């Protein structure tokens, strides 16, 4: 009970602190929906009779947005944890009755809340620009997104645990994220990749996130994606465990 109260207090405080940094606020919350508006204007002028474009707008674009927002959250999680470590903030918080898991969960919660808010803003922005009828089960998609985000955030946490300084955090994060992105089936279907590369793609957690998100967006049953969910949960458990083992407070 106590820990939950502390978690909420710290999460709320971190959200307020985040909102005070204008660049972070604009970059995280406002830039993505603005991009949608701008891109939407451009695409909006193209006749929507093109079936490929319609598929892109109806299927790929939402999954793109979801994945990019999540990866953005990972990057900023890695950065903030390393800044907090370097500045001795983590150490100072740890020397209080706050439990370590509360301190770290608050950071993850902040990222989840920001991710959700960004996505809602993207959807609101997109609704006015791209007029494609969608019959998507939003609740299902949100749950799928939650699984994916937690799983990918756990990778971010492991990076944050291992990276020594904030200056390293950004490049290391990118080094992990961008190759994953290209192999995840987001741009090129996994089946279309060369054989050797396919094997790599199969061990990348992001591949399962993309598969799950695309599937659920298209209305697949959850049962069809049990494998994806299992993979994502396994990744989350494994990476959370590893970061708990290797986490450095200072």
């Amino acid at each position: 009970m106590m820990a939950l109260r502390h978690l909420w207090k710290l999460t709320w405080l971190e959200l307020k602190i985040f909102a005070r940094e204008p660049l972070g606020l604009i970059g995280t919350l406002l830039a993505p929906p603005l991009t949608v508006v701008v891109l939407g204007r451009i695409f909006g002028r193209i006749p929507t009779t093109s079936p490929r474009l319609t598929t892109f707008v109806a299927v790929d674009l939402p999954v793109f947005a979801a994945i990019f927002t999540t990866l953005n959250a990972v990057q900023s999680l890695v950065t903030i944890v390393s800044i907090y470590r370097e500045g001795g903030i983590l150490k100072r918080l740890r020397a209080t009755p706050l439990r370590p898991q509360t301190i770290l969960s608050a950071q993850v919660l902040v990222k989840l809340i920001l991710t959700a808010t960004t996505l809602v803003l993207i959807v609101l922005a997109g609704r006015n620009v791209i007029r494609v009828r969608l019959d998507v089960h939003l609740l299902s998609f949100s749950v799928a997104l939650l699984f994916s985000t937690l799983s990918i955030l756990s990778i971010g946490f492991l990076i944050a645990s291992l990276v020594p300084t904030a200056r390293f955090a950004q490049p290391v994060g990118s080094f992990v994220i961008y190759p994953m992105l290209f192999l995840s089936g987001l741009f090129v279907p996994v089946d279309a990749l060369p054989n050797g590369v396919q094997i790599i793609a199969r061990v990348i957690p992001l591949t399962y996130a993309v598969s799950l998100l695309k599937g659920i967006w298209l209305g697949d049953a959850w049962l069809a994606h049990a494998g994806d969910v299992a993979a994502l949960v396994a990744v989350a458990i494994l990476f959370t465990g590893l970061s708990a083992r290797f986490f450095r407070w200072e």
Partner: protein
Amino acid sequence: MSSVISVAGIRKAYGSTIAIDDVSFDVVEGEIFGLIGPNGAGKTTTMECVEGLRTPDRGAISVFGLDPVRDVYALQQRVGVQLQEAQLQKRITVWEAVDLWASLYPKSADGRRLLEQLGLADKRDAWFMTLSGGQKQRLFIALALINNPDVVFLDELTTGLDPHARRAIWDLVRGIKDRGKTVFMTTHLMEEAERLCDRVAIIDRGRIVDIDTPPALVARHCPERTVLLTTVDAGAESRFRAIRTVDAVTRADARYTIRGRGDDLVTEVIRCLSDHRIHVTDFRTETPHLEDVFLKITGHSIRD
């Protein structure tokens, strides 16, 4: 007086570097106890072991009879901590920090009053990043006192502060003691230790060299006293040499430097002046300080 902190033979190594070895001391209830030594001597490592932030490789620590590592959460209710080189979130306000800390303890002091006492009342809505060094340290003292602790840990509290801010902080530390709390502090500033600490432990290269009150340490290791005086009396030099506790007399024109040992030197020089009606135009004494004690027993200056 019962001992609040008891440290017995602790050792801590980082890889092949032994940070502290065979460190033992007791901190008594109600005193200001200082761990003094140069940077890298093992002060912070020792303190963080006592705080439960680090686990010693061997040895035993007890704070109120609790094991700092095993009983860390029970201990946190009774101690207040200020860490060396800690920061808070850049854009957290003073009040938000105090309010968060207060919410973490079942019983907390009145945050508003604490900020008033520490001179931060008008800074309550200021972001942490906008505070001066002295204000940050005062905020950290407020956070260390928020749970009304019985023991307060202060690690290099005044490092990086200007002399004015430093003096203000010293007054605050005395105030903590006056409220009946025990203070365990580290410093590499000998003047600070001399002015604040009831007892000090000198630590050098990871080992405790000696423990006592500052005057006792000075008396034990540096019994030399020096009297500097100015007189035109022609017969003065031989009179000074005749004093029992005087070891050496040097002279430059009318200025004499009289060296000797023991607390009686000054009294005997004054008696000599009065007995022989020697007229002096200047008179002062030089007493060794902790700084000299450190140099004497470690063979190197604390500033090295």
